[in-house]
Structure formats: structure tokens, C-alpha cells
């Protein structure tokens, strides 16, 4: 128990100290998306799947946003730079935005 506690303390401390601020921002964005998705999932179990298309649109928009954010995080992480020699962080962010535009068009189309 003590080990776990010290390990987790160490984890939090090193996260705060060593993670770049941009990655922390992405992480908080992802937590926000995750919570939104969970709220919708709880709601659909209570209220039923009607209207199914709206549920799918709303839920899939959170899932897809989460995945895109995760991709952005992987591609902009300095520790992964060796794996993406041709992808600069600016390029990764531009891809992220372009994918999000496509995603939100699809979601808005499917929503109503």
C-alpha cells in the first residue's frame, strides 16, 4: 500500500514537473471530452435510444474528438519525435483541425 502511494505520488509529481504544458492542455481537453461522453452514455441508458441518430451523432462526436486529440498528443509529444520525422507539431495540429472540421460536418448532418 505504501509502495502504491509513493509510486502514485511520484507519478503525479513527475507528470507535473516533466510534461510540457501543451500536452497538459491536451490532457485536460481529453478529460473534458471523456466526461461529456460518459454523461451521454449514462443518459442513454436512462432515457432510451430514441432518437437513435441524435444519440449516435452526439456520442460518436465525443469518441472521435477524443481519438483526434489523442493522435495530436502522440504526434506532438517530444518523446515520439523520432517516430514522426516528417511530421512537425504545426503539421500535426493542422491535420487535427482539418479532421475536426470533417467530423463536425458529419455530426451536424447526422444529428437531426
Amino acid at each position: 500500500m505504501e509502495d502504491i502511494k509513493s509510486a502514485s505520488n511520484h507519478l503525479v509529481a513527475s507528470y507535473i514537473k516533466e510534461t510540457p504544458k501543451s500536452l497538459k492542455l491536451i490532457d485536460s481537453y481529453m478529460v473534458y471530452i471523456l466526461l461529456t461522453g460518459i454523461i451521454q452514455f449514462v443518459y442513454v441508458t436512462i432515457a432510451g435510444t430514441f432518437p437513435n441518430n441524435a444519440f449516435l451523432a452526439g456520442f460518436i462526436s465525443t469518441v472521435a474528438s477524443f481519438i483526434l486529440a489523442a493522435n495530436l498528443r502522440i504526434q506532438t509529444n517530444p518523446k515520439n519525435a523520432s517516430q514522426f520525422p516528417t511530421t512537425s507539431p504545426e503539421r500535426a495540429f493542422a491535420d487535427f483541425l482539418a479532421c475536426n472540421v470533417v467530423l463536425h460536418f458529419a455530426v451536424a448532418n447526422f444529428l437531426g
Partner: protein
Amino acid sequence: MRAFILLSTMAMAMVASATSLTGPRALVILDNLDDTDAYMNLWTDLQERQYNITLRDTSSPMELSKYDQRHYDHLLILSPKMKDYPKGMSAKSIVAFVADGGNVLVAGSPEMGSTLRELSREFDVEYDNRYTTVLDHFNYDQNLGNKHHDAIVVNPATYMSKAGEAIVPQDQLPGPILFRGIAHSVNPANSLLNSVLWAPSEAYSWENVNLDDPADQDPSLSGKDISLVSVMQARNNARVAFLGSTEMLTDAFFEASPKKHGDKETISGNRKFIEELTKWTFQEKSVLDVVAVQHHKVGEEEAPAHYRIKDNMTYTISIAEYHDGEWHPFSADDVQLELIMLDPYIRKTLDQVPLDDQSTVGTFTTTLQLPDQYGVFKFTVNYKRAGLTYVESVTTVGIHPFRHDQYPRFISQAKPYYTSAASMGVGLLVFSFVYLWGGLETSVKTTKKA
């Protein structure tokens, strides 16, 4: 010239209105033209109803139709003894005559040969063996059947089919029916066939030679299994009647006074029975016609090009019945509408609009909600009743689904989803703003410094 055409059309319309809907030409085949005098009342009755009667015996050649045109509208075969069909005629040609819309009345007798059996078998009617007669030791007529108990008195109230009211209404007969002839049986599985009159329960069918010999086996037919008169209406509404007796059509039987043992003398119902039977067979009554079919959405008047699922709509069908030379309103409480796309989705009994003095047709209507199913549907009235012309009316309509703008746009139940989708968009904007201009130490620089 025009006036002449109009007059002649009117004259034709008047003639047509007074008689059978098929036409006035009737061919009668007798065993022998000497028999003509035996049926004087029958000829009188038929001529009063505007029939042109052609009498032939079995030896003269005759053709029922030529080049696909019928020469006659009705055929009365009163020649049970004939060994061969007249030249130019066959069982097949008579079936073809019926298929072409001609009506046929066939009367048998104990001397009936194989020619007419061959014909009756085509219609699922089986006459008993040659030289057999319907005998009844309880219901025989004291005058005509005293010796062999073969002229039997049939009480229409008991031995006439209730379903046959459209054929011969039993309450219009002045008395019982006299019958002397051969038994036949109808195939009960054949829904086109109906027995109109059957033998009393005590009757049986037995050989009429050596009647005094003791009987050593069961009769092949007895009681209500014996049909005396039966009718068939083919799918094309042509009508065929089978009788077991030529004698029941004769003046002697028309004018007889049937008297059962121990009963009073009565008036023979034969003349009225044969009149009603020939009226039915020759399409003078119980003929139905669909005059109009209307359908529209509730609150509208015109039939739309197509309906939408769950529309409320009204269906109306007008049916007229022909009898006594005129079209009358038809009355019934069992006309049903079916809404079919492969399977019936809705089956509903139509309500008859109450008749008044001005009514010329019977109008049946109902209001219903279309099913929640789109496709090509048929509004079908499939009304088939014993003795009445088959009514089959099919109207094809398209039922469309809702168009995209006919659904509700925003549903309150789905508001969390809308909010979520919007918040994902807003979240993206906020995130991008902070990421780009939030003064963050970008990872690029960090990487390069490191």
C-alpha cells in the same frame, strides 16, 4: 339519322333491361322435338322474359360458337337420353361455351347416357348410375308416384339451402317441389358449386328396374347426400345449373297438386322454382356490379396521387344489384376492404350508407388510418358469396414515407446530444485558441532545447 340511332339504341336498351344481362338467345336441345309440347309453360315463361328460343333435337348439327363468337347466350340441355352429342358439339365445346360467358342448364333423368355424365363431371357433379331413381316411401306424391314412390314431394323450407336465398328464395314458392329423376352428388370441396335442393332425409337412390326384388345392399346415395338441383358459378361468373329431372320442368309437374300420404293437396312450387332458377342461371338476378370506387384523405374530396404512411383516409365502393330488369342498390353487412401488400395489413368491414328513395346503388364506406409501412398497396374488395356475382375490385395506391421535412426537427429528449455535439465544437475552438495563443511553451521549442 341521329334520331333513328337514338331510338334504336333506346329500343335495344329497353329490350336489354327487360331480360338477361348475357343476352336473349337461348338454345334448347331436346331428345325429340315431339317432347316440345310437354314444356309449353316453360316456353311461355321464357318468352315472356324476352328470350328467343331455338329448339333442336339431338340429331340436328349445331354449333355453339364460331370464330370465337357465341351463337347463343344460354343453353338448355333437356336431352338426357342422347347417346352422342349433336354434330359440331361436345362436352369440351360446352365447357368452352361456359368459359366464354354462356350459361347452361342441364337436366338429367334415370335414362341419362354417358355424354351428359362426361359434361357434368367437368363441373364436379356426379350423377348416380344409369337406371337409378330417387325413391322415398314417406314423401312420395299420391297422384304421380303412387306405384313406385318415385315422384317425391320436397318441402323447400327443410330441404333448400339457406345460403341459396340469392338463387331461389324459398318464401316465394307457393308450395312444395315435385321431383322424379336421378340423384347426383356435388363435390363439397368445390366452393363454386352449391346444392340448391336436396332430397328428403328418408329418400335414397336405387335401381328402378325390378323394384319388387328385395334390396341386398346399401344405396350409394341417400338422404341429404342426394342433390336434386345444384348450381355452379364459374370464376368468370357464367352460371350452370344441374337438375336430376327433366320432368320437373314439364307442364304435368308445373300444374300438379302434390299430395303426400295423409296430407292435404297443395299447389306445386315447380313453376316458380324453375322460374327463379332460370332467372338466376340466365343472369336475370343476383348479378352485382361495382359502379364506382372512391378514396381520398379525410377532409379532402379528390383521390391523391399517393398517400403518406399513417394518413387518415376514406374508402367508398358503390355496388348495384341487377334483378327484375333493373339495377337496384345492393345491401349487405359483410363487405370487407383489405389493404394488401403481399399480405393484408388491414381488413375492415365496410359500413353501408343508409339507403333512401333516391339511392340507385348501395354505397359502402369506411374511414381508416393507413399502416406505418410504405410501398405499393392494393385496396381490394373481394366479395364472393354463394349465388351472387363475384365482386373483385382492386385499386392500386402508393403509400409514401414521411419526407425529410415532415419529421419534427428538434426533439426535446435529444437535447443532451445536441448540447454535447455543440460543446465538442465550442471545446475545440477554446482548445485551439489556448493551444495557439495561450502563451504555452510549445513542444517544438522544448524538444529543440532538450
